[in-house]
């Protein structure tokens, strides 16, 4: 057997599995989206039908808010732990990245424990102000949940990027007379831009498609993933669920692909 034949054979198992369980199903999904009572218009309905459009806008706005908040919080924290050495730093980093492997459902439960009916925030506010603050089961809880999900990932990305920064750049800037703020503005932040783009894409795409967290918090939160789920299970509107899934998939993939072409790094959402 020649080397070229061996290489070709090495790809056969992958090809079989990916074709059978991904490429074929995905094409079925795309076809199913166009096979409902609306036909191809099902795809247009995502934007035209007010109910769907509203959910789409809601989801996008929520995802943008999560992305922005994550970016700010994680940049401050990530820069801080990577650029300072102090006792307990390793523990702090471990704490910041610990929830990395939590699936969305568990994140949802964490939010319930924080802001749910028996949650910490409710407890504290009742003792302090006499009124119980509970917001886990609303869009606010979902916002907090996505934040919880994204912060560890983005902190890691920021830390990796800061570690790769060439300290000579900063030294060069200072030798040219730049003060601490100017160094931050003109050297550090521009050098971190690719990491920011990659992180934003991850946060945004994850927030757009995340299902587990929303599912745990409440089934009536008005976001795309829950809409798809209810269309499919409760409404039995398979065509619309398929069309919405395809739309969601395309958006998530496009955001990540776009970010990758800007940032050059491997960008992938998870969860």
């Amino acid at each position, binding site marked *: *057997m020649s080397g070229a034949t061996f290489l070709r054979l090495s790809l056969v*198992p992958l090809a079989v599995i990916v074709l059978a369980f*991904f490429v074929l199903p995905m094409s079925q999904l795309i076809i199913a989206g166009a096979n409902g009572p609306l036909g191809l218009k099902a795809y247009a309905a995502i934007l035209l039908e007010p109910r769907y459009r509203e959910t789409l806008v809601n989801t996008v706005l929520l995802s943008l808010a999560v992305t922005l908040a994550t970016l700010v919080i994680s940049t401050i924290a990530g820069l801080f732990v990577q650029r300072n050495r102090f006792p307990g730093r390793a523990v702090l980093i471990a704490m*910041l990245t610990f929830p990395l*492997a939590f699936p969305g459902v568990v994140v949802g*439960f964490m939010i319930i424990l924080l802001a749910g009916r028996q949650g*910490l925030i409710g407890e504290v506010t009742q003792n302090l102000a006499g009124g119980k603050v509970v917001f886990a089961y609303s869009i606010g809880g979902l916002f907090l949940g996505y934040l919880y999900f994204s912060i560890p990932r983005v902190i890691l990305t920021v830390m990796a990027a800061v570690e790769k920064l060439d300290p000579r750049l900063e030294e060069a800037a200072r030798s040219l007379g730049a003060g601490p703020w100017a160094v931050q503005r003109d050297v550090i932040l521009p050098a971190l831009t690719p990491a920011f783009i990659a992180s934003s894409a991850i946060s945004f795409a994850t927030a*757009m498609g995340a299902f587990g967290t929303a599912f745990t918090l409440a089934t009536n939160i008005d976001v795309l993933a829950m809409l798809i789920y209810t269309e499919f299970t409760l409404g039995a509107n398979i065509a619309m*669920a398929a069309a919405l*899934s395809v739309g969601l998939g395309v958006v998530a993939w496009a955001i990540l692909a776009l970010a990758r072409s800007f940032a050059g790094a491997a960008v992938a959402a998870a969860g």
Partner: protein
Amino acid sequence: MMKTRILFGLQLVFTLLVAAFLIVPALLSMVAGVTVNYFRGIRSGVTLDWIGQVWTLYADTIGRSFEVALATLLVTLLIGIPAAYALHRRGGRFSRVVEEIITLPIAIPGLATALALILTYGGFGDFRRSWLFILAGHVIFTLPFMVRAVMAVFATIDVKTLDESAASLGASPWRRFRDVIVPNAKPGVLAGALMVVTLSLGEFNLTWMLHTPLTKTLPVGLADSYASMRLEIASAYTLIFFVMIIPLLVAMQMIGDSTRLMTGRKS
């Protein structure tokens, strides 16, 4: 000097608050899982009853999750390592396209992938009802992590020349793969394996759609307990999940550190 001290303090406080946001609920759930009555607090006493109850209610989901995770690992190893080798050796546009396709399931929400699988194979009753249906979803979702982890190692060693030199010594393609390629891909295989097992154990988005009442996995059971069980049982169940996942996380961190050390030394 004063200014930098204040700045340092502010950043520290901020970072500690972030860490608290992440850690406190996890601690709460751990405590709640062993508290007699969470509403009355830890003063009500410590108990393992809830864990025992979780065991009677959900032991099968835990076992199944391990089964699925190990099967997923096996399949991704068998498919992923040869594929990573072939993609790396061939290179070029073809490999990039294949890589992009197999990475899509990470980018596309699990809900969409799961719907697609149901639409295609929902009619095959026996398959639909078995845990193999879940396995198919998990393999598709975790495969790119394995392939990429192995390819990342190939990018740091000169696989092509190693392969050529083994060939010059008379080794057939299969011998080369077995004797030289796979042993030298070990760090990537290990990292990929940890990733695959961790992701499979925690996978919910696909699994929720793919499971049947008889093929529940741990995260599916978790969602079930969050919706219908008292907080202590849900917490105890979550605690069990933490115990399963933390060693994997620690192992991943250690590997990450050691590879970083290695690359640091080389550069």
